[in-house]
């Protein structure tokens, strides 16, 4: 459990946050830029000396302004992934990892070979960090943080400076850190899709305050919630791997008894994965069609509709116990004569849709 009750006042900005986070899995902190999410993360790390209040990790008090307790950041045993990696330029990749290994509090912890192999950076070890690509830098940054054997891993917009293909390749890595190394993670991001793919639980921040808290899936798809009522809305689906079809380069999933096709993935059959489907990628048909390239056609029921802007509607589509969302034009709604409670087929392309 990570508990905090902190305030920080700067000119023109004040942050106040009181929370208790059970640290299992990955927590996301999301909000617009300037909402204080990075500042909150820095407070937890001990990088904001002017923060007042209290931070407690399990039975250790990391800071308490009343009792004048302050544990220096280097003594908190936290791993921190900065947006820009912050690798030491005078050292090689190996040198950066060794720096962390040498400063471990205890000799225990994950084996360096294990970390290096898991992140796939064996071939980079002897390179100077100046010659790494953005994706490689972040992999090394993750490896370095893990080499320090942290009790908690904080990530500040770890993918913000990466191009799309680097993002896609590093996402599964970040997502599996908790399962593989047992290190709880708190990740800050402004990108809803990124958070949906990474986090199990979510803190929503606005204007220096935590405005909502809950499971990522429920916050993102609760009808009427701020996150589920604009044109960036997206749905998170839990699915089970059914079988791989390497010839066609796809994997078939089961979701609520229906078949879903996604880009080929490595998870074994039977394992559960989650996929993120942005509302603007979903279109509707009144019946199934074979005369289309769109592979994924799921039977759903329209349970809610809300207006987005002047010309669009955001529909809530019930899919068994889960929900999909579709962003359609008002014109389409009228033409198809759609109504609440109606059965529709939700379609979205398999290409580009990856599961995690």
């Amino acid at each position, binding site marked *: 459990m990570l508990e905090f009750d902190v305030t920080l006042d700067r000119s023109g900005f004040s942050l106040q946050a009181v929370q208790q986070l059970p640290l299992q899995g990955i927590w996301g902190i999301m909000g617009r830029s300037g909402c204080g999410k990075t500042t909150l993360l820095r407070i937890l*790390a*001990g*990088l904001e000396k002017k923060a007042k209040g209290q931070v407690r990790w399990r039975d250790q008090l990391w800071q308490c302004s009343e009792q004048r307790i302050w544990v*220096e*950041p*280097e*003594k908190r*045993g*936290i*791993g*921190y992934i*900065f947006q*820009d990696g*912050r*690798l*030491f*330029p*005078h*050292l090689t990749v190996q040198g950066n990892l060794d*720096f*962390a290994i040498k*400063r*471990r*509090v205890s000799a225990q912890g994950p084996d360096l070979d294990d970390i290096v192999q898991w992140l796939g950076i064996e071939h980079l070890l002897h390179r100077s960090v100046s010659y790494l690509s953005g994706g490689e830098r972040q992999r090394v940054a993750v490896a*370095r*943080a893990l080499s*320090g054997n942290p009790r908690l891993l904080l990530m500040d917009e770890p993918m913000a400076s990466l191009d799309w293909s680097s993002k896609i390749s590093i996402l599964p890595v970040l997502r599996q850190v908790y399962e593989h190394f047992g290190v709880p993670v708190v990740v800050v991001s402004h990108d809803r899709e990124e958070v949906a793919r990474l986090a199990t639980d979510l803190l929503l921040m606005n204007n220096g305050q935590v405005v909502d808290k809950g499971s990522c899936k429920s916050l993102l798809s609760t009808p009427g919630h701020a996150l589920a009522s604009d044109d960036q809305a997206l749905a998170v689906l839990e699915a089970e791997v059914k079988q791989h079809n390497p010839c066609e380069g796809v994997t078939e999933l089961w979701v609520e008894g229906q078949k879903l096709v996604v880009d080929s993935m490595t998870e074994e059959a039977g394992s559960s994965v989650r996929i993120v489907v942005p509302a603007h990628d979903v279109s509707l048909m009144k019946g199934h069609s074979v005369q289309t390239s769109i592979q994924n056609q799921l039977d759903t029921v329209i349970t809610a509709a809300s207006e987005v802007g002047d010309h669009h509607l955001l529909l809530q589509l019930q899919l068994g116990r889960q929900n999909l969302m579709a962003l359609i034009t008002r014109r389409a709604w009228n033409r198809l004569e759609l109504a609440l409670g109606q059965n529709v087929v939700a379609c979205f392309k398999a290409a580009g849709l990856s599961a995690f």
Partner: protein
Amino acid sequence: MGGMEESVLEAVRVTLLLASITTVILLLIGLPLAWWLTRLRSRIRPLFEALIGLPLVLPPTVLGFYLLLAFSPDNFFGRLWLDATGSGLAFSFSGLVVASVLYSMPFVVQPLQRAFEQFDHGLLEAAAMLGSGPLDRFMNIVLPSCLRPLLLAACLGFAHTIGEFGVVLMIGGNIAGETRVLSIALFDAVETHNFQQAHLIAGGLLVFALVLLFVIYSIDRKGGRR
């Protein structure tokens, strides 16, 4: 002839010893001082910078005059030194070292401060998050990243100490083997119309300064290109 060369060699020895000791002391003082100044977020920072920079604009004789006063056993500093070491500072090699440290300080502190200001302080946060304490961070992150400016500062301090004259004249006098440095020996040679010796010293200093400056600018240029 032999005696003359010997006295020049003596002066060379004193000069090099003075410059070396001064440079080492200046690095020991200058590194923490420049770092502290870089991190200082106070309105009095320019005051410290001005104090350190004084020798850049002040006539060396002014500094020498006040040092002479301070070295006097009638004053606190001079008394303290006399009590602690049993000998006075004025007209001694130790006195020259003290004066040189003050006189050459801006040449060491300023390049270091410039380098520390350009240093990416975000790297220190990254190091802290890996369990690295303040001294460890300074020794293993800051210094290795600033090796070139460090070398530059050392060269500048060394060169400037060799080139000083006015302060030495005021507080060191002209004691062979103790305080007679090359610049004084040159003055001496000219005064006594010993132009052969004057040529030797002046030419030697000229070539030495040229080589050293070449090295310094080479370091600086490479630093800029990086």
